């Protein structure tokens, strides 16, 4: 394998470093978990002990469920990762490393190998842990390991090597050939072959061309692109440079990033400034006569702008309304000029492909979906976070091996929602579906940009379908009637069903409307809007019927359809449920089973949450 191993990559980061290094995960997820205060505590602890160490912020290594994360690398030793770091355990970690010369066993997750350094005994390597075993990291390989605001860290891990190789050893056609060989397909969800897209744009007439990076990651439950932008921003710039070179030297590139990602934008700005300073961007790059520069455009809050033509309209200062294709952006894009538009993850892969060859990349993955895919694994799963697996990995191993199974052991798996508002739900019977473009579509969902939300039996399928439809309804730009009005009527029906006012024939009507909206909408947003409804009716028809006929919500989510009862056998008569009820509907006497008065119950669920024994359902 030509690519750097984790050991080699890590070695580049510690060359000539004689003092300990402390890495703290400072992506949005780490910060939300309190990484900033952990950093302050670490600084204080170092001062108190009179120790010297480098403190380096990193992006997200993927273990979001373990945030805040802190890694310690003593000179000559492997890097040890600590999870859920709190104020109290910092002194213990310090004692272990700085006083005893070992590691704090109780809090360590794993150790990350560094070539030339020594391992600790009794601590699994990163690749041996359940979460990382089965993952293959290419596009996310640097995330969480390097300092994303340091161009030196990027260069030390083979960064900008592909650029040099491309500019000095390859013609644009050779670059396109490698991309074609790699079989890389658009990772934003479209799945169009990247090599072909570049080739078509190369063939378009005109001197003036553009490269656009689509960083408008809007699917709820998806944060792959955020992780890459926050953890390894230079890789995206390098991908854009390659695209520019391949299509015939586009002089200018844009990154269209959603404004909800302030940290990603900050990291990108720094990366662009640093790259300019080192002449990886700007005029006459590396003295080869090739010139390219990048501008960041912030989105202003419109989901439809993730659709490429809407994005281009927004980029040009218009309302972000899609236009019917053709013309394709490859022919007429920004300012009417040929434009390549690729998603963040797609571009992040490019440097690795150029450096290691298309064949190498194509050796991973399934027959029609080559390489790896990142996923944001969330919901009711134990290990939620960012993962990268070879395309075609079965859903079961994503949920139960990497994901570690269900969050609450007692509540079984119900469905996996893939592809966000354009996707669908796959039930337990579909757990063996290989996750790649074709197989997920056959199962009624889409791989999409990579959001996987796991739902357990305590969630409601009808509510989920309603949730996604409400989302697309809100975000429908209003240009075409099928999407604007069709989705509204569908939402009204679903809302009625969840309120206990469902009627016979509602499901047929939903399916009929779905087919209509699907086939008549102008852009991808409308065409895919009915997917969450269709896939849930396909697999969970009984649950819809329970809502409609029996006025019953099996997942106990739809407030109007819930009748909370105390299960006598499970009630331990502890009384925890009584004081939390805001309406005094729960009655309980010492030693007696609690009782709920359904007349006055407002279905706030407070008693259910308070019960530690799941005796109220």
């Amino acid at each position, binding site marked *: 394998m030509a690519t750097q191993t984790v050991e080699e990559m890590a070695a580049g980061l510690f060359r000539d470093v004689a003092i300990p290094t402390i890495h703290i995960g400072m992506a*949005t*997820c780490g*910060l*939300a*978990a309190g990484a900033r205060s952990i950093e302050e505590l670490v600084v204080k602890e170092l001062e108190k002990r009179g120790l010297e160490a480098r403190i380096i912020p990193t992006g997200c290594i993927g273990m*979001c*469920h373990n*945030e805040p994360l802190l890694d310690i690398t003593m000179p000559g030793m492997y890097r040890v990762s600590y999870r859920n770091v709190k104020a109290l355990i910092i002194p213990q970690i310090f004692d272990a490393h700085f006083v005893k010369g070992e590691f704090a066993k109780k809090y360590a997750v794993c150790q990350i190998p560094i070539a030339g350094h020594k391992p600790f005994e009794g601590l699994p390597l990163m690749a041996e842990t359940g979460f990382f075993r089965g993952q293959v990291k290419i596009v996310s390989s640097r995330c969480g390991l390097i300092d994303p605001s340091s161009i030196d860290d990027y260069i030390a891990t083979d960064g900008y090597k592909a650029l040099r190789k491309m500019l000095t050893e390859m013609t644009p056609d050779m670059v396109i050939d490698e991309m074609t060989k790699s079989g890389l397909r658009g990772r934003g969800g479209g799945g169009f072959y990247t090599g072909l897209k570049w080739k078509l744009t190369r063939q378009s007439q005109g001197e003036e061309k553009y490269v656009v990076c689509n960083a408008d*990651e*809007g*699917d*709820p*439950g*998806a*944060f792959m692109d*955020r992780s890459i932008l926050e953890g390894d921003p230079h890789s995206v710039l390098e991908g854009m440079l390659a695209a520019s070179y391949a299509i015939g030297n586009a002089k200018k590139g844009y990154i269209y990033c959603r*404004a*909800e*990602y*302030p940290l990603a934008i900050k990291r990108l700005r720094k990366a662009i400034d640093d790259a300019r300073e080192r002449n990886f961007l700007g005029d006459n790059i590396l003295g080869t006569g090739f010139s390219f520069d990048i501008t960041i*455009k*912030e*989105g*202003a*809050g*419109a*989901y439809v702008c993730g659709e490429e033509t809407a994005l281009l309209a*927004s*980029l*040009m*200062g*218009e*309302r*972000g*309304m899609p236009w019917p294709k053709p013309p394709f952006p490859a022919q007429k894009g920004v*300012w009417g000029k040929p434009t390549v538009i690729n998603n963040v993850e797609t571009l992040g892969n490019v440097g690795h492909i150029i450096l290691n060859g298309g064949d190498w990349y194509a050796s991973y993955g399934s027959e029609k979906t080559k390489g790896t895919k990142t996923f*944001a694994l*969330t*919901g*009711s799963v134990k290990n*939620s*976070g960012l993962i990268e697996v070879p395309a075609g990995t079965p859903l079961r191993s994503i949920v139960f091996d990497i994901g570690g199974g269900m969050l609450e052991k007692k509540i079984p798996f119900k469905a996996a*929602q893939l592809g*966000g508002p354009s996707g669908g739900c796959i039930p337990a019977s579909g757990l063996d579906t290989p996750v790649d473009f074709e197989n997920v579509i056959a199962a009624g969902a889409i791989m999409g940009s990579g*959001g996987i*939300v796991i*739902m357990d039996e305590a*969630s409601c399928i009808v509510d*989920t379908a309603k*949730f*996604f439809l409400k*989302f697309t309804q809100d*975000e429908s*730009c209003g240009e075409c009637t099928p999407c604007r009005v069709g989705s509204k009527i569908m939402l009204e029906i679903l809302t009625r069903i969840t309120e206990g006012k469902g009627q016979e024939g509602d499901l047929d009507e939903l399916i009929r409307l779905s087919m209509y909206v699907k086939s008549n909408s102008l852009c991808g947003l409308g065409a895919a809007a009915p997917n969450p409804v269709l896939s849930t009716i396909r697999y969970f028809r009984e649950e819809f019927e329970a809502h409609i006929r029996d006025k019953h919500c099996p997942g106990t989510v739809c407030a109007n359809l819930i009748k909370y009862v105390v299960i006598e056998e499970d009630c331990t008569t502890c009384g925890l449920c009584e004081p939390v009820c805001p309406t005094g509907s729960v009655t309980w006497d010492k030693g007696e089973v609690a009782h709920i008065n359904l007349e006055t119950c407002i279905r706030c*669920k407070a008693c259910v949450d308070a019960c530690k024994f799941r005796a109220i359902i």
Partner: protein
Amino acid sequence: MAHNDNAATINITDEEIDHICEEFGNREGAVVQILQTIQDKYGYVPAEVLERVGEDLGIPHSKMFGVLTFYSQFYREPRGKFILKVCVGTACHVRGAGLLVDKIKENLHIEEGENTEDMMFTLEPVSCLGSCALAPMAMVNGNTYGKLSGDKMVDLLKQFREESAGEPETEASPAS
């Protein structure tokens, strides 16, 4: 992050607007960025400011209004000091973001998109903030808060109130 300390009235002179437009070369294509710059500075985009930008760039007011109202992050009204962006994306939704929103509504007596009367808070449910593993979460003036619950949210509101300088602390007296 965008915030305005004194939301009641803002004074923007035509010269300031002209200056911002010039920074972007008075280009029609930069209209979204110009409006973003104005909003970052003043918290919202008042009607007369929108008109002036249109004049500077030579864009009809109808079109300016179209652009402004298309994007959810532009505001035509002043907003509170603390913008409570509660994530209502999928992962947060399945982990109880709805309850969080309800709690805020109940505590502050406001609906989605509204300000408290004292202009302290604005409730703004947003779609995915991309920190799904810490669901349910919220972002307040650029800071992220994960694994929230109704009670934690109420504590946070109290904390923001206390933090707010020059605002005498009154016990639980949200605008009603």
